[in-house]
């Protein structure tokens, strides 16, 4: 909300620099987001007097003027047709920022520089209304008041001496959505009470009650409706001071009546509306709900469809305004309006919010009503408007306020305990201290017992309803920075269980293995996400099509990242992500949380060369064994040997081959190469290997407790064996036989080579193993090893049809 410093000063006297204002109000909870010194806008602009006008020697349309800018006379080249000697004009001097470029650059501002125009030096520029940002007239220079004195800063001449602050008012503080509201808070800072404007009314003898009637049919949604009637007024533009002050806080001036209602809104925070009295059927105001599907044209010319929830202001025949949101076109103030009815009502906040949301229409009025207006201020606000309208538009103010107020609001009294206040804030304030703090913000305290305070809340503070609200006010007025900063020493660590330890360790492990961590946003585009082939969880109101569906697999979002990197020249990729995916559970209602399953996943991606081009590392394109190696290393670290890989028959749609991972017999994920069809869709023309694992399965299989096994006391012996077997025989058949038969002396078997070619023939292959023999209780003799080897060779021959190669 914009507030004007000059305006605030009408109610409270204070002398703050913009920095002080910002700091002090922010510390009171009214966050000052920015400030603008209006006089700075016309820095280097002065009032000038045109002394002479002469024709430009080289250009017919230009003139060269001698201009007195206060003390000195400067030559200024001017292209405006209306320039004449004797005029008072606005002169921008070199270095001034011209608000509007009327000759191009889309009207942007620019800095005025020294210029030679067609050979004549110009020491400034005479400005049009548009160039000054004061209006739309660009036909010639703006001619100022003849009485203006040459040399006067333009800001001073224009009355632009104000500072405008932008304050962010939190939703609970509707009382601060006005100049009076902010002035009240400044009063806390300067220890003074703000002064309300004096309202003196000149009422005619005719009672308003003879001219209009008010009837509230929905007392729940409209607890109070006050109105005043003015006759024989003259609609016209507002005086300059009113137009200026409204413009300065961002309100567009319209006419004297509407401007006054807006002025009172910005002054008191209470929304008003003026109706053309003569257009009210039977001069009657009825407040009631709309009919379902009823149509209504609001002031902005738009036709709106209403519901039975929408509260309407009606005359005897038809609706004339959407209560608390916007008036109707049918009773709008026009240039010919002479009689008016000013509405000053209180509407139920939730209903106004629902209506505003439903209509998609938020106005200054609805913004305040939905945050809670002040029910007690309706008459004061109506009177203030009546007074100003009479001053500006003349006319007769009919006697008396029409005030339908069926059930008078009872003041709210909140009980608050001194002990509780101190125990929440951590202070030791006395009862008297608390009472005087609350008094500063108009909370009147009666003490009912030693500890208990009875706090009467003024009607404008609708956010104070219970004890904790009073406690907050005490803390706020006492000053957060005056509250001691201390820490409690007794820390209970008993519940400090690390639930994220596995993720941390996996992350460190992968970084050690040369993977770069990526993080992708959960919301992605639907087409790519659906490549995973699972039903998607989608946003009902997505921000954009690129962020419309949640991932069912980390792979799909990673493909976009692979593509991005490839497009930017990084083709050798080793990436990992720890992230969540979301699955839609069949058969559960979409409005139940059970319909959605969140899973934490680990993703590995490798593509391109095995290692970046580097000295001593032969470059080689990665293949599925690289991925298998990475996955095996990870699983061996966390799950020892409690895992295995199984061919899955295209179980997952994403990769080919798709190799399933089982940990302790439970499915934990898969790895493989991204299917060509999918890679093609994303224009990725290189093999991408991925592995996706369920963190939960990894956690379940995580062997955190390790037990020490004694180190062997006797040396081990290594022997190599190579066999020729059928090319189709999986090597692990041979390996398994070696392990089984070699027990207990053969303690380790490592495949170190496979070969298929000329020496073996096409349908055969050679597999070579390094075997380690060891005994826990003695040094092995040659005969023992030979005996074990013979058994192994015999078994491989028999079980795998393997022939020993010499």
């Amino acid at each position, binding site marked *: 909300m914009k507030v004007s410093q000059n305006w605030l000063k009408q109610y409270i006297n204070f002398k703050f620099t913009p920095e002080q204002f910002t700091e002090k109000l*922010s510390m009171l909870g009214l966050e000052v987001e920015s400030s603008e010194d209006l006089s700075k806008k016309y820095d280097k602009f002065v009032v000038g007097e045109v002394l002479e006008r002469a024709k430009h020697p080289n250009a017919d349309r230009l003139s060269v003027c001698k201009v007195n800018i206060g003390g000195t006379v400067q030559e200024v080249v001017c292209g405006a047709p209306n320039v004449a000697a004797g005029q008072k004009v606005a002169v921008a001097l070199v270095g001034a920022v011209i608000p509007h470029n009327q000759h191009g650059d889309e009207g942007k501002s620019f800095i005025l520089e020294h210029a030679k125009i067609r050979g004549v030096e110009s020491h400034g520029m005479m400005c049009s209304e548009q160039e000054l940002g004061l209006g739309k007239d660009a036909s010639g220079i703006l001619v100022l008041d003849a009485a203006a004195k040459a040399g006067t800063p333009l800001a001073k001449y224009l009355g632009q001496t104000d500072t405008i602050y932008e304050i962010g008012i939190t939703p609970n503080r509707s009382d601060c959505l006005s100049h009076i509201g902010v002035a009240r808070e400044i009063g806390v800072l300067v220890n003074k009470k703000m002064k309300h404007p004096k309202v003196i009314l000149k009422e005619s003898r005719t009672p308003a009650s003879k001219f209009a009637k008010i009837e509230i049919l929905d007392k729940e949604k409209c607890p109070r409706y006050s109105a005043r009637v003015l006759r024989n007024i003259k609609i016209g533009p507002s005086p300059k001071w009113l137009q200026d002050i409204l413009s300065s806080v961002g309100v567009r001036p319209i006419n004297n009546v509407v401007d006054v209602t807006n002025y009172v809104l910005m002054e008191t925070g209470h929304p008003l509306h003026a109706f053309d009295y003569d257009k009210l059927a039977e001069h009657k105001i009825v407040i009631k709900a709309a009919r379902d599907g009823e149509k209504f044209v609001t002031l902005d010319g738009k036709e709106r469809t209403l519901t039975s929830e929408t509260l309407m202001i009606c005359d005897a025949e038809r609706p004339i305004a959407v209560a608390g949101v916007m008036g109707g076109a049918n009773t709008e103030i026009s240039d010919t309006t002479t009689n008016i009815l000013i509405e000053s009502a209180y509407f139920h906040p939730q209903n106004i919010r629902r209506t505003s949301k439903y209509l998609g229409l938020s106005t200054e009025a609805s913004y305040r009503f939905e945050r809670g207006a002040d029910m007690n201020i309706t008459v004061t606000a109506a009177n203030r408007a009546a007074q100003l309208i009479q001053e500006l538009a003349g006319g007769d103010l009919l006697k008396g306020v029409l005030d339908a107020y069926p059930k008078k609001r009872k003041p709210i009294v909140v009980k608050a305990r001194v002990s509780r206040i101190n125990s929440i*804030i951590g202070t030791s304030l006395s009862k008297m201290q608390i009472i005087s703090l609350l008094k500063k913000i108009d909370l009147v305290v009666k003490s009912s017992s030693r500890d208990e305070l009875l706090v009467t809340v003024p009607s404008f503070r609708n956010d104070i309803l219970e004890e904790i609200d009073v406690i907050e006010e005490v*803390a706020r007025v006492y000053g957060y*920075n005056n509250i001691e900063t201390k820490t409690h020493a007794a820390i209970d660590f008993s519940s400090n269980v690390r639930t994220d330890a596995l993720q941390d360790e996996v992350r460190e492990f992968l970084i050690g293995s040369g993977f770069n961590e990526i993080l992708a*946003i959960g919301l992605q585009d639907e087409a790519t996400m659906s490549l995973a082939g699972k039903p998607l969880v989608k946003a009902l109101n997505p921000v954009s099509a690129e962020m419309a569906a949640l991932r069912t697999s980390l792979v799909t979002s990673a493909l976009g990242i692979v593509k991005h990197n490839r497009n930017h020249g*990084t083709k050798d990729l080793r990436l990992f992500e720890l992230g969540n995916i979301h699955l839609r559970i069949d058969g559960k209602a979409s409005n139940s949380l059970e319909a959605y399953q969140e899973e934490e996943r680990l993703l590995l991606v490798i593509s391109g060369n095995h290692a970046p081009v580097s*000295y001593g590392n032969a470059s080689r394109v990665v293949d599925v064994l690289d991925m298998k190696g990475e996955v095996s290393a990870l699983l061996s670290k966390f799950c020892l040997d409690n895992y295995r890989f199984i061919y899955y028959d295209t179980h997952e749609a994403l990769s080919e081959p798709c190799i399933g991972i089982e940990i302790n017999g439970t499915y934990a994920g898969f790895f493989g190469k991204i299917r060509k069809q999918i890679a093609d869709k994303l224009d990725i023309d290189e093999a991408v290997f991925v592995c996706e694992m369920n963190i939960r399965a990894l956690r379940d299989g995580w062997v955190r407790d390790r037990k020490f096994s004694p180190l062997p006391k006797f040396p081990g012996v290594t022997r190599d064996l190579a066999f020729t077997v059928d090319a189709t025989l999986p090597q692990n058949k041979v390996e398994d036989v070696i392990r089984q038969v070699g027990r207990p002396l053969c303690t380790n078997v490592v495949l170190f080579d496979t070969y298929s070619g000329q020496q073996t023939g096409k349908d055969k292959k050679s597999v070579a193993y390094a075997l380690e023999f060891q005994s826990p209780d003695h040094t092995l003799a040659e005969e023992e090893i030979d005996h074990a080897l013979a058994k192994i060779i015999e078994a491989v021959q028999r079980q795998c049809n393997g022939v020993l190669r010499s």
Partner: protein
Amino acid sequence: MLEKVVHTKQAFTEELQKAATLQDLEQTRIKYLARSGEIAALFEGMKSAAPAEKPALGKTLNELRQYAQAQFDEKKLLLEQSAKPKEVPFDLTLPGRSKPIGTKHPVTQVMEEIKRIFRSMGFSVENGPEIESDYYNFEALNFAPDHPARDMQDTIFIADKILLRTHTSPVQIRVMEKQKPPVRAIMPGWAYRNEAVSARSLVAFHQIEGLYVDEGVTFSELKGTLVAFAKQFYGSSIKYRFRPSFFPFTEPSAEMDITCYLCNGKGCRICKHSGWLEVLGSGMVHPHVFQAVGYDAEKYTGYAFGMGIERTALLRYGIDDIRILYENDVRFLKQF
């Protein structure tokens, strides 16, 4: 005799200098140092010298022999080295063989540091789901239905009353539902807002939530804990302030600001010329929240706080566009 010695030394030195090959050198050795060489001959000649001259002469001759041997050894070493086939010297500028180096995402790094600090203060780490119900995300956190406070967080809906959590605060409710006080936990995770993507805002971002509930927890302690955190995270010399604010689920509520460390509080573009940076929101847990989870609000008090991670990461690393964080460009990732 002495004259002879001086002459021999001179001749030896000259010849040695001239010797260009090992063969030359061997010639010189034979001529002077061999058993039948000139120096040996001088020793032989000493026998015929007067007895009184003998000690001094012996000393001089010994010195000559030592000198000649040392000179010879030195020259030999020199010639041997130059005679060897030239070995290419080790090129220290060759790169060492290495494996690729992995990196941790900058957002993770910031998150980990924050977690580490709070863990050291006795906070456990808890998690909750990203798809939430209106109840957990709003209602239980004292956001009344049809209250403008809901406008503070533009929501992405999945279904009726089912949404992507707009903050990590619903995890507070989940933690309190399953655990009796004392509760001391931080709750990191993703949150989502229906906001247009720009250099300053993304649809999704990370938050970290904190909660401490026990008997006798005060606002004063909230300040103490958060200041202790901020000093560890931002540096012990920072200045800070707490300013009243509004969150439906805490009261009194406060924003914590620290002096902008980019301009030292003088005001710059990043701190919007205020000299302050807003780093977290906090407050005392609202009694309505305790009622929602069945805690005795008279017996227990507590504080809660929350902060955004991305903004912190942007400030820490001097990144000016939030979107680059999730492009996951490897050239970017490798910088951290």
